[in-house]
């Protein structure tokens, strides 16, 4: 019974919390402006409230709260759920750290390693993605002709009509021992025997980088596009070399776009499931397949929830830290 209360009351708390934040930030309606319904008309106003409310509560808040709640419960057969054994416990989190529900004698290195490797590799992929996308976005935003821009956009978007799984398997075929890349390398005499790209995680990083390219390009493009061309020229006229202009004029201006692109790519990389499963080498330990296994191999939903929740918290903390360091506010990302 208790969990029902939690699940029903927490959304209310969340709503009140958001309302308070809105008040503190001063975005609440002020007296001088016409009221919400006056501005939108009551049909649209009502629709907005219901749609946004439904979206926020039933699609975001409720499932999350349910999973968080689940992560603090033991794994029980259906008949015992809600029974005397169904109490709040930290055992799922303990399992992540120590590999046991009760003992704290040994660290669970495999999972901890996978956890930090995933975060670290995601950072690298995000940086790689940024390095690939920034020049392209700059070119599209500042120097390409309208004609060239259309062609580039088309070339960028069309490949995404191919679905994720198909693309991942295609990469696998491409990079396998008998694949075209190895054949070419050997044909050119660069290597004498096939190089195992998949075991070296080259395939995984390629797949992940490629999968989220657009999510990096578009925020960057939008941000750079809004930069007044005269500022670039002014800097050049004042004697700045090209790298200085990028580092001190273009990038500071594009900071919200960079942050928004990087957070998107980073979050989605750490949470990617299909690509690591298909393209990961035999020794690759990406964290999401481990989470997936909790749910579908071990049928241990509480543990899976705890693992997923840990990943989410780590990512949020990481992103907020980066935002803090770069001096950006969360609201600026959406500009």
């Amino acid at each position, binding site marked *: 019974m208790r969990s029902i209360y939690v699940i029903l009351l927490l959304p209310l708390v969340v709503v009140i919390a958001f309302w308070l934040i809105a008040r503190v930030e001063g975005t609440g309606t002020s007296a001088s402006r016409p009221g919400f319904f006056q501005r939108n008309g009551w049909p649209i106003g009502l629709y907005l409230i219901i749609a946004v409310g439904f979206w926020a509560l039933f699609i975001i808040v409720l499932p999350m709260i349910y999973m968080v709640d689940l992560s603090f419960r033991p794994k029980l057969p259906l008949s015992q759920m809600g029974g005397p054994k169904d109490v709040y416990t930290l055992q799922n989190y303990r399992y992540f750290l120590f590999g046991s529900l009760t003992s704290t004698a040994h660290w669970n290195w495999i999972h901890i390693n996978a956890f930090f490797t995933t975060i670290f590799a995601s950072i690298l992929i995000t940086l790689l993605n940024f390095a690939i996308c920034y020049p392209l976005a700059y070119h599209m935003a500042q120097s390409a002709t309208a004609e060239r821009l259309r062609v580039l956009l088309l070339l960028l978007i069309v490949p995404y009509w191919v679905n994720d799984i198909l693309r991942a398997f295609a990469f696998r075929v491409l990079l396998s021992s008998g694949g075209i890349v190895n054949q070419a390398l050997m044909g050119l005499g660069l290597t004498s025997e096939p190089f195992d790209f998949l075991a070296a995680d080259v395939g995984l990083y390629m797949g992940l980088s490629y999968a989220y390219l657009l999510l990096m390009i578009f925020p960057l493009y939008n941000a750079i596009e809004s930069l007044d061309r*005269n500022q670039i*020229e002014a800097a050049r*006229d*004042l*004697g700045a*070399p090209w790298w200085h202009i990028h580092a001190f004029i273009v990038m500071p201006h594009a900071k919200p776009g960079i942050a928004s692109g990087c957070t998107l790519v980073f979050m989605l990389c750490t949470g990617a499931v299909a690509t690591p499963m298909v393209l990961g080498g035999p020794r690759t330990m990406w964290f999401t397949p481990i989470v997936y296994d909790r749910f579908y191999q071990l049928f241990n939903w509480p543990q899976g929830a705890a693992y997923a929740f840990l990943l989410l918290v780590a990512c949020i903390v990481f992103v907020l830290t980066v935002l803090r360091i770069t001096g950006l506010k969360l609201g600026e990302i959406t500009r």
Partner: protein
Amino acid sequence: MAAAVELEGVNVTFGEFVAVRDANLTIEPGEFFSFLGPSGCGKTTLLRTISGFIEPTRGSVRIGGEDMKGFGPNKRPTALIFQNLALFPMMSVAENIGYGLRVRGVPRHERDEKVKNLLIQVALTEHGHKKVSELSGGQKQRVAIARALAVEPSVLLLDEPLSALDLKLRQHMRAELRAIQKRVGITFIYITHDQGEALTMSDRIAVMNAGVIEQVGDGRAVYAEPRTPFVASFVGENNRIRGRVASVEDGFATLETPLGILKGRNPVGLTPGAEALLFVRPESLALRANGSTVGFEGETLDVAYEGSVTHVTLRVRTGQKITATIGGGAGAPSSNENLRVGFEPKDGLLLALPASH
């Protein structure tokens, strides 16, 4: 001393379009030089060619005697002030001014010292730490000037920097720009479509039209002694009457026009039979003139009283409108009054009709 800027046969073409045609010009060190012309006449293109953003299709640009071919804008001893100023919004006022020094690797303490001096020069001492967005229009203008002066250019290029300001501020900034130029003593090259700006500030003016420099001279010369019909009608108000040269004598010529025989100066040496245009300034026209001057009949259409002067619009026999400006309001005619308009032959100016007319 080498000329500040020399243009030699400069042509700039974009595809088929000729933006600048055969520009030949020498701008002296310490000169306040203006390019005056309507929008699209090629003056901004020429400025960008001098600053290095555009390479001339043909011809050469020399700055301080040195050929600038292959030198990018970051390698030229010029600084450009943009029409929208292009200040860096993410930097403070002081950082903006110090940017050019920073990219040159000037050490911080030296930089700070120089920025402080520049802030004093443009009267913004208290504003160094502020964001650019916190400044007023005139203050931003001065930051842009200081930022450009910081790199000690030998030529400062200004691309209509006053066009965004309101009238009062614009007039104030004219005087201030002139004073700054006198103080720092470097060459200013100023682009404008506003003849008032060009006339009040410049030592010399180049009037441009359709990519061609039509005339170069000081303000008095381009106003009082225009050499092409375009200059005559673009700089200041002018009345234009078309006709055919009847006779020439002693620097003057008579012109057969639909309004009768008129007479004016003939500085370009027109010969009898040539198609010509006669230009008379509104302020040179006298209303109710007696027979001693040349002139024609007209009917007043509109009388606009403007305080110190009154503008009278007349319709002449051909239907053309002629404007006369008379001092004060006294003696202003009423509407629909038929009267004779006259002018001294020395105030009339005859110029050849351009081929396209």
